[in-house]
């Protein structure tokens, strides 16, 4: 299943699961055991107590993704699985980047790029700037590409999170 072919597309899957000990372990173990290609995973609490929401970016053919969701449903803690790939979905990722800024001109340029990308400067040191960017993955990618030439000292990314546009709400029910 992990073999790359032309028909593979990137799917965004939203999973609601109960906060039981080992629940995350079960989901992750499933990926490994059945060879699914997970590109990113982010998880956090929801508005409902004891329910977590997980956003997964999975690459695969449609049949593989269908199997994937069925296998997810077999896990006792999994309450609901939604594929939001086809929807008008807002997808966001956050990154915090510590970039080298030991010259006045590079510092100015980094500040300028940050402004254009609506990135926030979190910290400034004598030779480094730490910025935070939130946006679609493409924006985060482009921002990274721009900063690379100054030298990225350290960076961290959250992986994608997603929510549908409009008034219809997804929930664990």
């Amino acid at each position, binding site marked *: 299943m992990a073999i790359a072919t032309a028909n593979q597309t990137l799917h965004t899957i939203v999973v609601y699961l109960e906060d039981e000990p080992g629940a995350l372990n079960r989901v992750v173990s499933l990926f490994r055991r059945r060879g699914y290609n997970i590109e990113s995973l982010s998880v956090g609490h929801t508005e409902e107590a004891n329910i977590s929401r997980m956003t997964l970016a999975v690459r695969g053919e449609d049949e593989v993704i269908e199997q994937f969701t069925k296998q997810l449903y077999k896990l006792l803690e999994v309450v609901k699985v*939604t594929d939001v790939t086809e929807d008008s979905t807002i997808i966001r990722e956050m990154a915090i980047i510590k970039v080298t800024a030991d010259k006045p001109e590079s510092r100015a340029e980094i500040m300028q790029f940050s402004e254009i990308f609506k990135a926030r400067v979190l910290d400034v040191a004598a030779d480094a700037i730490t910025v935070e960017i939130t946006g679609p993955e493409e924006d985060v990618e482009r921002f990274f590409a721009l900063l690379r030439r100054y030298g990225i000292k350290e960076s961290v990314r959250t992986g994608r999170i997603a929510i549908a546009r409009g008034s219809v709400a997804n929930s664990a029910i």
Partner: protein
Amino acid sequence: MTMIENPIGKAARTTAGLPIQADNRFTPRELDGARILCECLLAEGVETMFGYPGGVLLPLYQVLGEYPELRHILVRHEQAGGHAADAYGRVTNKVGVCMGTSGPGATNLVTAIATAHMDSSPLVAITGQVGRAMIGRDSFQETDITGITLPITKHNWLVMDTKDLAETIKKAFYLAQSGRPGPVLVDIPKDVFQSKTYFAGYPTEVKLRGYSPNYFGHGRQIKQAAIMINQAQRPVILHGHGVTTSGAYQELAELAEKAEIPVISTLQGLSAFPSAHRLSLGMPGMHGGIHANHAINESDVLIAIGMRFDDRVTGNLKTFARNSKVIHIDIDPAEIGKNVPATIPIVGDIKNVLQVLNKSVEEKTHTDWLAKIAEWKLRDTKRRAAEMDRRGILPPQFIIQQMRQVLGGEAVITVDVGQHQMWVAQHFEFEKANSFISSGGLGTMGFGLPAAMGCRLAIKDQNIPVWTVTGDGGFQMNLQELATCVQDDIHVKIAIFNNGVLGMIRQWQSVFHDKRYHSTPISGPDFVKLAEAYGIKAWRVTEQSEVARVIKEANEWPGPALVEFVIPEAEMVMPMVPPGGSNMDAIEEAE
């Protein structure tokens, strides 16, 4: 938003209204975890458990004597206890229970749990764990058994509070036997057994938010399936173990007979449909009949019932049933479309689905189609007759035929794994439902003897014979259980097919690996003397003329008994589809 059709309808779920109901005869009081567990097991109707004590299980064994209704079989190895409980569960369609202590006791259960998982067997494994304060410190005999068994259980729990124990046990039993059955493990720390809590009695229902099997198939899909079946010219039923777990024997027979559809049974499906039935084509796949594989290949509609298209059934998927439309009925939605795409998928309990389906299926005959299959079968019949009729040796096929004649159709047969397993599948004419117990999915050597112990203890009528057919290799993997059979007076009958080699592996070496017989010759003890050393009556058979008489004697012997059949080393299971090859390219004779 594309809501993925929830395949198992996760709405409000409780166990209320299901046939699994606990008998609640308990007076609420303050109780320790060990006694709470025993009360729960009693309430579940557990009669027999297979276990082995150990340090952290001592608080449980301390109180077990207060519960004489719970029969504890002291096995000689936890793996065997797991297999015995697994077979106990399969043959009764109730939950089998096994126990092991923390660390090695728990890891010894792993093979048995994986076996039960692959064959969808209702099993609850209870393991002791080190005290809560000791967890995560690499304590003596500590192992992360919930972590280890995570991918081979339907679910598992580590109980960290005595207050949660009863509810967890209730959930475990419910989960193990509902929907698609499977093994569930409950890990209990020593001090959870020891601490007391107020026990109000065994819960009558539990809520599992993320679990609600779909028992009733989709009406429109079933209707579509009936239309497809009614229009079929060359239909075939291919059923598996799901018919047995659902108890849908009559419904299967009704469908087959009403529309005159030939029935093919997977290895695990064997005995759910009588082998001698005029519509039975036996087993498909790697060692299936040529006619069965041809029938699948030439079918226009393939009705797959409670089976999962295992690779040993399908051979090369690219050449499997290429021109057939597939109706796939299974209770597990994840099985549908996993290996073979379904034209009409139906998720539901087999019995329920077939009851509805049969109403819309028209009475029909398929004379030409059956005649065509009968033609293919001629070749098979000829080969089988030739296998049977050989002088100067003891043909294993002949022994199985004789066993069937002497023991009758009521007998329950467990098998180990290898050539003898296939010979039983090919030649034992199964008549009674759920009378064949085999490790089909995992292929676990050493399964046969403990499985027979489980069946013997489960089947109350001592007139029903319980035999295990095993090989000299597989038998040696769990022969320590002979002692258990003696100590607990378990009257299993053991037939060892001794060819002095690991026969199936040798067969593969012979056909696919250049006849390099490395590590397949295997020695063993004098099995007759070995049995006698344990206090078990034993026979050795080398002549065809002795076979029937000795089987009869052993069967009537009032105790466990062992018969060693000395069979030829080079004997092969035929026909044989090369691994990964097309089912249409079976080898019928070895060079």
